[in-house]
């Protein structure tokens, strides 16, 4: 038995997981229209490689990765590209973003795929990574970081431990649990590929103990031989156990330094669904075109996990799950603790969309007056980063950004535990997000003004130098001129002298005469 290590703080939350995990995963219908945003991952936006009017096939790359950190986008079903235009995208700030819109033809005709089966073991790691990159796999746990980068540790970092995150600590969400219960083999196959790419020694799969079926399914799917390198570990249910740093602490007792990545400690963490997607990409040669989304909450009549084509609008998905709009007070993408509210159902399911949660009025506080902080310290007790949330709040209110950084604002993982327990009902996380954004903006401004100042200073310097140069040049020129003038003078003088001498010589007889005359006169 592996010794587990508790992280500081955290909360025991009501799971509400049973609501959405009673029935097997439902394959969602392919919608008439697929909306593929070019930016569904961390990093640079993908660039479209199709044009309006093009016919595309299922799995065809329609936008390619651009830059080092980026991911391509694939058509989730066959059809015709009808638009490449800004559409509303589910995002905390509900922005419009460029999307490739496909009108599906219902044939769901696949491009030709190249399954690699077992021969991936003979592929060199970089080839394997390129394959995964071209399949558009990103972290499906929520962050959306392109996976191939996390399979490329760099020569300096040997990987000792590969962790699969099956904690799924947010209440209501069960998409990972459903995947582990129904498709454990796909996850393990993906894990083995990841292990090969990373050359990792040990593989750990961390699952919260409120998912006994998932734990059992994963354990049963392992072959005897696999059991020697893969360890399914039951971890205590304690939000946010699935947060990367907290999970690493729990499983390995390593506390990642604030500015360190797991890879610096020989650790890589991937989500279980990401592993399955990697498996699809390599073994079947199929890019990422669908994911499992939990649709749940009291306003959903058919709460369940849906296997959804990426780009399906929330409208279509929620209609299939029988959303009762009149019961719903708030619609959230993600879980109740960290999810963000959306108001428009037209936005599509993204690679990172793990849950669509409806919340009724009774499940939400009536809008109440936030009281002053009474410094009770409940927030300190639950903070998994061991921060002093009440001090951060104090300084965030005062917009004292220097103090905020002194109190390690940027170590806040925005898990929401402090807000959850605050007796004064202060939206603490909101203050921290605001402060982080402000500091970020300030920093950008500072950088901008630094650059501007440097430019200005350089310009001034250049102007100054030019002036000096000009002066110098002028001075030199003058000098030169003077010199040449002087030398002209000299030459003139010499010439004049010579002329005089010559003239003298010419006149010499006469002169002599005169002299003589003089002499004679004398």
């Amino acid at each position, binding site marked *: 038995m592996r010794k587990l290590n508790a992280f500081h703080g955290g909360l025991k939350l009501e799971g509400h997981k049973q609501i959405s995990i009673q029935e097997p995963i439902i394959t969602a219908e392919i919608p008439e229209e697929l909306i593929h945003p070019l930016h569904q991952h961390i990093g640079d936006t993908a660039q479209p490689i199709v044009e309006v009017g093009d016919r595309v096939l299922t799995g065809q790359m329609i936008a390619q990765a651009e830059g080092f950190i980026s991911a391509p986008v694939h058509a989730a079903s066959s059809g015709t590209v009808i638009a490449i235009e800004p559409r509303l995208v589910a995002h905390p700030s509900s922005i419009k973003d460029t999307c490739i819109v496909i009108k599906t033809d219902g044939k769901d005709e696949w491009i030709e795929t190249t399954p690699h089966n077992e021969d991936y073991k003979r592929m060199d790691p970089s080839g394997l990574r390129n394959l995964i990159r071209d399949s558009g796999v990103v972290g499906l746990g929520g962050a959306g970081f392109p996976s191939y980068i996390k399979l490329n540790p760099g020569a300096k970092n040997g990987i000792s431990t590969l962790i699969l995150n099956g904690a799924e600590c947010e209440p209501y969400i069960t998409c990972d649990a459903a995947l582990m219960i129904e498709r454990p083999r796909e996850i393990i196959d993906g894990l083995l590929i990841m292990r090969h790419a990373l050359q990792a020694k040990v593989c750990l799969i961390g699952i919260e103990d409120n998912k006994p079926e998932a734990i059992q399914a994963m354990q049963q799917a392992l072959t005897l031989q696999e059991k020697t390198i893969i360890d399914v570990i039951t971890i205590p249910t304690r939000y946010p156990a699935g947060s990367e740093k907290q999970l690493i602490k729990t499983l390995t007792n390593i506390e990642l330094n604030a500015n360190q990545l797991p890879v610096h400690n020989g650790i890589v963490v991937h989500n279980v669904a990401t592993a399955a997607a990697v498996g699809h990409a390599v073994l079947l040669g199929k890019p990422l075109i669908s994911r499992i989304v939990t649709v749940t909450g009291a306003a959903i009549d058919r709460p369940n996990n849906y296997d959804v084509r990426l780009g399906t609008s929330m409208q279509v998905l929620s209609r299939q799950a029988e959303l009762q709009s009149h019961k719903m007070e708030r619609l959230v993408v993600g879980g109740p603790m960290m999810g963000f509210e959306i108001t428009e159902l037209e936005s599509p399911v993204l690679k990172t969309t793990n849950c669509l949660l409806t919340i009724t009025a009774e499940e939400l506080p009536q809008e109440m007056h936030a009281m*002053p902080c009474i410094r009770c310290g409940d927030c300190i007790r639950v903070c998994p980063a061991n921060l002093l949330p009440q001090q951060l709040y104090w300084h965030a209110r005062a917009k004292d950004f220097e103090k905020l950084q002194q109190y390690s604002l940027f170590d806040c993982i925005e898990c*929401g535990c402090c807000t959850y327990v605050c007796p004064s009902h202060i939206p603490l996380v909101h203050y921290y997000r605001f402060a982080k954004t402000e500091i970020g903006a300030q920093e950008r401004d500072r950088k901008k003004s630094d650059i501007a100042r440097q430019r200005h200073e350089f310009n001034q310097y250049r102007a100054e130098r030019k002036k000096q140069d000009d002066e110098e040049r002028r001075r030199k020129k003058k000098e030169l001129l003077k010199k040449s003038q002087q030398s002209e003078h000299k030459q003139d003088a010499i010439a004049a002298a010579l002329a005089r001498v010559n003239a003298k010589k010419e006149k010499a007889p006469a002169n002599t005469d005169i002299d003589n005359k003089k002499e004679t006169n004398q």
Partner: protein
Amino acid sequence: MSPLHTSPHTLFTNSVTRVMLLVVIAMVPAMIAYIHFFGWGILINATLCLVTAFSCETAMLRLRNRPLWPYLTDGSILVTALLIAFALPPILPWWIPVLATAFATIIAKHLYGGLGYNPFNPAMAGYVVLLISFPKQMTAWLPAQSDQGYAMGFIDNLRYNLFNELPANTSYDILTQATPLDVVEAQTGLGHNIAEIENSFVQFSDYFGVGWDWVSLMFLLGGLFLIYKRVISWQIPIAMLGTLALLSSIAYLYNDQIHPDPLFHLLGGASMIGAFFIATDPVTASTTPRGQIVYGIGIGIISYVIRTWGNYPDGVAFGVLLMNIAVPTIDYYTQPRVFGHDKDD
């Protein structure tokens, strides 16, 4: 479009009112014990304190343009008023509770910015101002009623407190007596030893001060309830009581003729109410776990020193107020180690 709501999207699990009401509930056993031993005076005082507190709170909120309802119902003023009532002797002219509470609410609480912003514990500030101004009235207690002596009924108590009228055939000096802590302080000062004092003063039973022990035990009970309910954390009470116990043990072992034993210190005076109900006031106490231990130790030391060598029989209120000033410094130097940071980061 209305601004979007930010996470978490959940119901509130706690409220200031809930916290304060739990504190009030935790005071009930001590209140019952107090009435049992010292009569109805505390209820008269509590009523005066509550009326004053809510009037002053309302007036200050009005003046400061703050919404009345959320602040009048947050329970904080209720706790302040009750703590003052517990601190005052049961037999007392009416204007003392009124003045103490008015000072606490208007000056110690609202002039510093109201709930959450006051650096000093309002109840203790109000109490100490009156203690310094009217030491005679503030230190004369009724004898515990299990004792012989004049049992003062509700009406008698009320008549004295409101109209300064004493029952016939008695006088203020006959009615009242010093608290056990007071007796020990005064008598050891005169050169008497503890055994003599305990034998010759009615304030003492075989072991502790009569009545005080039970009230203290009830505060302990209430305090444990608050820890169980996670309204307060263990650090402050344990640190404060531990320090008191340690210092009094050392003194007791050194010379038990002039130093009372540790239990006398723990169950006498304001130790228990101080440790669990006053020092733990969230607004004015230290907030970091290590800071709370320092803060509790500080109160323990100051209380012990004032009890033993100072002019006042008890020192908890002074200890709390003095450590209140030190809180920002304590908190600054006792910040917890942030996850993934080195100790000195």
